C-alpha cells in the first residue's frame, strides 16, 4: 500500500481518497446541470423545428465530427491506462499515456478549429448578418454554444493532464500523485461523455433523408 500524506481533517488515507472521489462526482453533477439547459434547448428545437434542425445538422461536417469522436474516445482510453498504471507504480508508462492523451486532446481542438473555420466561411454562424432561416440559426446557435462549452472544458482538461505529465517527471515520489490523477481522470472522462451525446444530436440528424 502506498502511503500518502493524510490531511488533518481525515483519519485515514482511504477516507481522504473517498472524500476526494465523492467531491469530484458532486462537481461533475453540477457540470451536468451546467450542460443540461443546452440539451433542453436542443430538445425543444428538435421537437418544434424538426425540419430546420435536420437541415442544420446536414450542414455539419460528419467526417470531421466522426474522426473527432474516435479521437476523444481513444484519449479516454489513454487516461484510463495512465490512472491504472500509476496506481500500480508504473509512473513512466503513466506519463507516456498522459502525453498521448494530451496529444489527442490537442488534435481534437485543431480539427474543431478547422471545422469552425469552414463553418464560418460557409456562413453557418448565426446572427444579424446570417442568411440562414431562423430555425437553422437556432440550430447553429446551439451547435456553437455546445461545442464551444465542450471545447472550453477540454482545454481545462488538457491543462490539468499537462500539469500531471510534468509533475510525474519531477516529483521524488510520482506514485503519491495517483489519487489526484484518478480524480483528474474523472473530469476528462466526463468531458468525453458529454461529447458522446453531442456527436449524434449535432452531426447525425436525418442523414438518411
Amino acid at each position: 500500500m502506498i502511503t500518502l500524506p493524510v490531511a488533518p481533517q481525515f483519519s485515514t488515507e482511504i477516507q481522504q481518497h473517498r472524500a476526494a472521489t465523492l467531491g469530484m462526482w458532486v462537481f461533475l453533477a453540477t457540470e451536468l446541470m451546467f450542460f443540461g439547459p443546452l440539451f433542453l434547448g436542443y430538445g425543444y428545437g428538435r421537437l418544434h423545428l424538426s425540419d430546420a434542425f435536420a437541415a442544420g445538422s446536414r450542414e455539419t461536417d460528419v467526417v470531421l465530427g466522426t474522426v473527432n469522436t474516435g479521437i476523444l474516445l481513444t484519449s479516454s482510453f489513454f487516461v484510463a491506462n495512465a490512472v491504472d498504471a500509476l496506481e500500480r507504480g508504473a509512473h513512466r508508462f503513466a506519463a507516456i499515456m498522459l502525453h498521448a492523451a494530451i496529444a489527442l486532446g490537442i488534435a481534437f481542438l485543431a480539427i474543431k478549429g478547422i471545422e469552425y473555420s469552414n463553418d464560418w466561411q460557409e456562413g453557418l454562424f448565426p446572427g444579424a448578418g446570417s442568411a440562414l432561416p431562423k430555425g437553422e440559426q437556432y440550430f447553429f446557435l446551439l451547435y456553437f454554444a455546445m461545442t464551444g462549452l465542450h471545447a472550453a472544458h477540454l482545454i481545462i482538461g488538457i491543462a490539468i493532464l499537462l500539469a500531471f505529465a510534468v509533475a510525474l517527471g519531477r516529483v521524488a515520489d510520482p506514485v503519491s500523485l495517483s489519487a489526484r490523477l484518478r480524480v483528474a481522470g474523472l473530469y476528462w472522462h466526463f468531458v468525453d461523455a458529454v461529447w458522446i451525446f453531442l456527436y449524434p444530436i449535432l452531426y447525425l440528424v436525418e442523414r438518411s433523408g
Partner: protein
Amino acid sequence: MKHRKPPVRRNAVILAVLLLLLAASVGSAYLRLGVWNSAANLTIAAVKALLVAVFFMHLRDASALVRMTAAVALFMLAVLFGLSATDYRNRADDPAPWQMPRQLSGAQWGQSSW
C-alpha cells in the same frame, strides 16, 4: 514495491467496443429508419456513456455513495427536463404580446408559425 500489471488489455477491449459502437452509430444514421434513427443513435450514445462511466470512471468498483451521486445527478436532470417540458408542452407558440409589430413580421422560425 512490486509493480502489478496495469489492466491495459481490459481498457483496450472497452475502447474497441466504443469504436464499434461509433461505427454502428454513423452507419445506422445513413439507413432510412425514420424516427428510429434518433432512437438508435441516442441509445448507442447512452451505452457508450455507460461504458465510459462504469469502466473508465471506475463506477464498477465505486462506493454506494458515489454511485448514488451519479444516479441522483441524472435523476435531477430528468426532473428539471420534465418540469420544463410540461411548460413548453402547454405554452402556445405565440410571440410575446409586448413585441413590436416590426419584430413580429420577421419572426418566422423555419416552418413554424411564430
